[in-house]
């Protein structure tokens, strides 16, 4: 299976669909329960490591190019675009299950975040302020929102607002399972209230898990170098010079920003989160799209 997909990477003009298919195969069908589902992370990490080892250009060229040029927010005709902030393929696969159980026939695909994989940059890239002027929009910040039903763009702050609350440093505040349950509740509430023919569920970016067992191995020297250069998950080229890290294959430069590749990370002190975005990893940058016809 993996060999076949790797072969496609070479043979296809566009390698992204093959990468997406592999990711989707890892995450769908979903696990027996939410906890078991999220344990697929390990497999995801392995694949990402393999991809980096055999096809480094995917991270240094292909993916940055896609993020710079193909990040989009297309409101469907007679429909609504629902942005689930920070939704990754992990959650999307479970949403598909949920929608099927509700009797819908969802279709899945993918899109891209901008670089760095942050909401601000995505909104700039898709010209969100213009979209807001042209479409009726709503901002959802709770699990129990009130909608008119004819909104064309809905920006749901979940799961991003919840991800930040799972952990502060070594202190567990919540759980990833709880995060998912609340996000699904919010999505159900949105779907229940929308009175449109077509809904596209997408996200502005995904997120990377940087907890134990889910990162790329790295030497102390490399860790120190990254630590010295980065204060967050990305830095502007105007602020720092990370060319030596780019040369070392740890960092990529795109659109005026330096970002760590894949699951490269470094120890942080204090109230750090292990659920992060802003970097250039598969699950941060390749975002799921689910289309539903009501």
């Amino acid at each position, binding site marked *: 299976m993996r060999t076949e997909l790797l072969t496609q990477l070479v043979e296809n003009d566009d390698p992204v669909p093959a990468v997406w298919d592999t990711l989707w195969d890892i995450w769908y069908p979903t696990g027996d329960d939410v906890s078991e589902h999220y*344990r697929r992370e*390990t497999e995801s*990490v*392995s694949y990402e490591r393999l991809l980096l080892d055999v096809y480094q250009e995917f991270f240094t060229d292909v993916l940055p190019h896609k993020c710079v040029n193909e990040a989009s927010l297309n409101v469907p005709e007679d429909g609504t675009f629902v942005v689930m902030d920070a939704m990754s393929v992990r959650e999307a696969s479970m949403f598909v299950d949920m929608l099927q159980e509700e009797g819908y026939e969802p279709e899945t695909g993918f899109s891209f975040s901008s670089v760095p994989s942050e909401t601000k940059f995505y909104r700039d890239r898709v010209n969100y302020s213009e979209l807001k002027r042209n479409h009726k929009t709503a901002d959802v910040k709770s699990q129990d929102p009130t909608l008119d039903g004819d909104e064309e763009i809905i920006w749901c702050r979940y799961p991003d607002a919840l991800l930040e609350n799972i952990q502060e440093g*070594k202190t567990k505040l919540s759980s990833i399972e709880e995060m998912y349950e609340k996000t699904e509740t919010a999505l159900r509430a949105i779907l229940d209230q929308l009175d449109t023919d077509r809904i596209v569920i997408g996200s502005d970016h995904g997120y990377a898990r*940087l*907890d*134990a*067992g*889910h*990162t*790329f*191995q*790295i*030497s*102390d*020297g*490399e*860790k*120190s170098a990254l630590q010295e250069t980065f204060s967050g998950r990305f830095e502007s080229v105007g602020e720092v010079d990370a060319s030596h890290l780019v040369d070392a294959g740890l960092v990529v430069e795109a659109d005026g920003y330096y970002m760590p590749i894949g699951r*490269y*990370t*470094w*120890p*942080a002190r204090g109230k*750090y989160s*292990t659920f992060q975005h802003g970097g250039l990893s598969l699950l941060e940058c390749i975002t799921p799209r689910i289309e539903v016809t009501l």
Partner: protein
Amino acid sequence: MTYPSNALQTAFDHVDNKLQGRDNQGGLTLSGPYGAGKSHGLLVLYHLFNRPTVAQKWIEEWDVSLNLPESSKATIHSTSETDADLIWEPIFEDLGREDILDDIKRYPTTEHLEQLTEEEPVAIFFDEIETWWESFDKSENEELLERNEFFLQHLFEVANDPQEDLFAFATLLDKSQDIKRIVNRTNPYAVDMNDTGDREQIILHRLFETRQDDVDEKAVRDIVSEYVDHYNYPIEIDEPKRYENRMVETYPFHPELLDLLDDVYDAGRERQSVRGVMNVLADTVRRKYNETDLLITCDIEPSAFRGINQTLFNRYVSDKDAVDDIDFGEDLLRTIFLYTIEEREQRASVTECLLGTFKPQKTTVDKLHMSLEGLYGVAHYLDRDSQKENYYLTEDPKLTALVTREQERVLEDDRGSIEETLVDVVRNDVWSDDVYVYPDEDVPDRKELTTVVMLDYLSNGALRGKLDDFFGGRTYQNTVLFVTPKKEIRDDSEIIGKAARVLGAENLRGNVDDGGELASIIRDERRELRNELEDRFGKWVKWSEGPNGDGIRMRRIDVTADVDDVKDKVGRDKTYVGEKIREEVADAENGIAIASMLNDFKQFRRMPILLSDEVFYSAVSQLYRDEKVVLEGDRANFYVPQKSDALPDLTDDLTIHHPDNLDDSIFEEEPEPEPSSENEGEGESSSENNDTTALTQKPETKAVSSKPDSTDSVTVSTEVIKLEGNNARVLRSMADSRINGEKDETTHIDLSYDVDNLSKDELVEFLEQLPSGKHIDATLTVEREDEN
């Protein structure tokens, strides 16, 4: 009309002898307990002398031989009515001889008394004279007593004079030694009214108007013979015909009833005798005369006897409800009660029980006998002797009988509850409430270690099937310690019998007022069952990975009925746990989170059982210290023992890595400021090499001449190199890196294998694969199951 009882007729004979001159004794005492008829007899005798003509007619009607004088005088004095200081005064006055009184000085002399009978026979009667005598204060009334004593002495002396027709009669209760002494000086006749021998006739005469002679004997015999005809086994009657005759004589009362009442009252001399019997019988006749053709013991109303033993009566009342479902149970119980209160025997034989209860128109003797046997254990206060020949009520509940009865009942009707009791005793008594009993109880699917006991004695195949069912769909399979019995339990009749007995005893709780005895019985019965059950446990079911990694194998290891012993057998060896952790992480490219690994230990039976989480954490710590694992925290924070990183807190999120699975960069130190040397190469070597370094003992060095005569020498050192892994490939790889192909020669190999429970065949196969050597030493560790 008075019935001339045998006792009375004896008195009549004495009177007649005196009157006819055949005897000189005219003194006569009537004795007997209360109610024996003394006062009544005294009155009859009084009437003989007071109204001799009328009395003579009555005497003749009863065909008694007594010729009374045509005229006579009599005076009777009941001390309850006459409170005279000088007893002779009312006597002389009553007899119209106040004239003599004038002549008396201190007391009447014999002459004074002889004057009384000058014209006709005179009879003087004292009722309860002892009571009157004892009412005097002996110190204050000494003179009065003395004067009365002289009178009485003279009276009985004159009564004993053949020349004088003077009679003196007194009733005696044996209460005063003085009166006895005074009266007995002349040896008057004594008639015991209680020993009349014809008490039944008296009773019948006094209860029924119809004289015995007028009763239709044939009709009576017809009724009685119907009874006697049914008196078969187990009723024992020596001479049925004679018995039948007696029944005819005592009709309408069963002779057993009269005998019983006689004994009941006779035993208590202080009680009203025939008078009490009379009341009881009269009441019985009044209640039952139109319901039955023969009055038997069970027709008696027991409340009449509550005064004899109130407690026993209460027990009888209490048991009436208990025997409600048994045919004639209450009648039998009543009969037994009545026999029990009879103080001499205090029990009813089977024959007495049946005779006292059986009525031919209602049941058969056989059925009644079955009912009698059915009472035992149902009536709480009923007991019987060991031969089952006699029944009686007890004041304390007959608990062992009740327990036996309840045991029999539950064995017949309540097998389910017996098993529940068995489970309860196994869990709480045998295993100190530290286990679950399967499949009787739900065993929670949980992370904590749980001991589960089975009561089913099964073959390996059947057990495996049953446990496969148990483990199916269960998350935490490796936290359950199953213990099976080594003998039958559930299907052993002895065990079930004992459990039924425990249940029987416990069922009686709240139903009997036992003063704590029941609790003691329950304790004893439970202890006995526990002891029996303890011997039958057990075998701990041990799981292990198949030799070729193909599924899990089941073995049974001997344990005693003690959770701690089971845990001892499981063992607390963290070495094996550590090996398993390393084995597992070796196969996990991205490592395994501590929480996940710990969870695996609890979920999968192929893993060693953890007696506590501490064993696991301790094993991880040891592996880390031995540089056999590397730990990873959040955000690429690796803890590498090879770099002397301190062991972090073993939080759930830490991931355990096998060093072989980690990139070399993980082991790279921060560049040292010192210039690199040859050692740097070693520093870059793999973790295996690091392991080897750590595990390499300091070489012993000795100088060996390459040639005997040469002064040049080659230094040869001996080094012990430890190779470690779980297959030959790993060892070969280690040997490749650590053994110099040109310089090193291996002289000795110690092989030590930890294997997973090899069968004999597997062991043979294993040994056959080993290469030959100059000499091979093999020491096997074998777990052997004992036969039970």
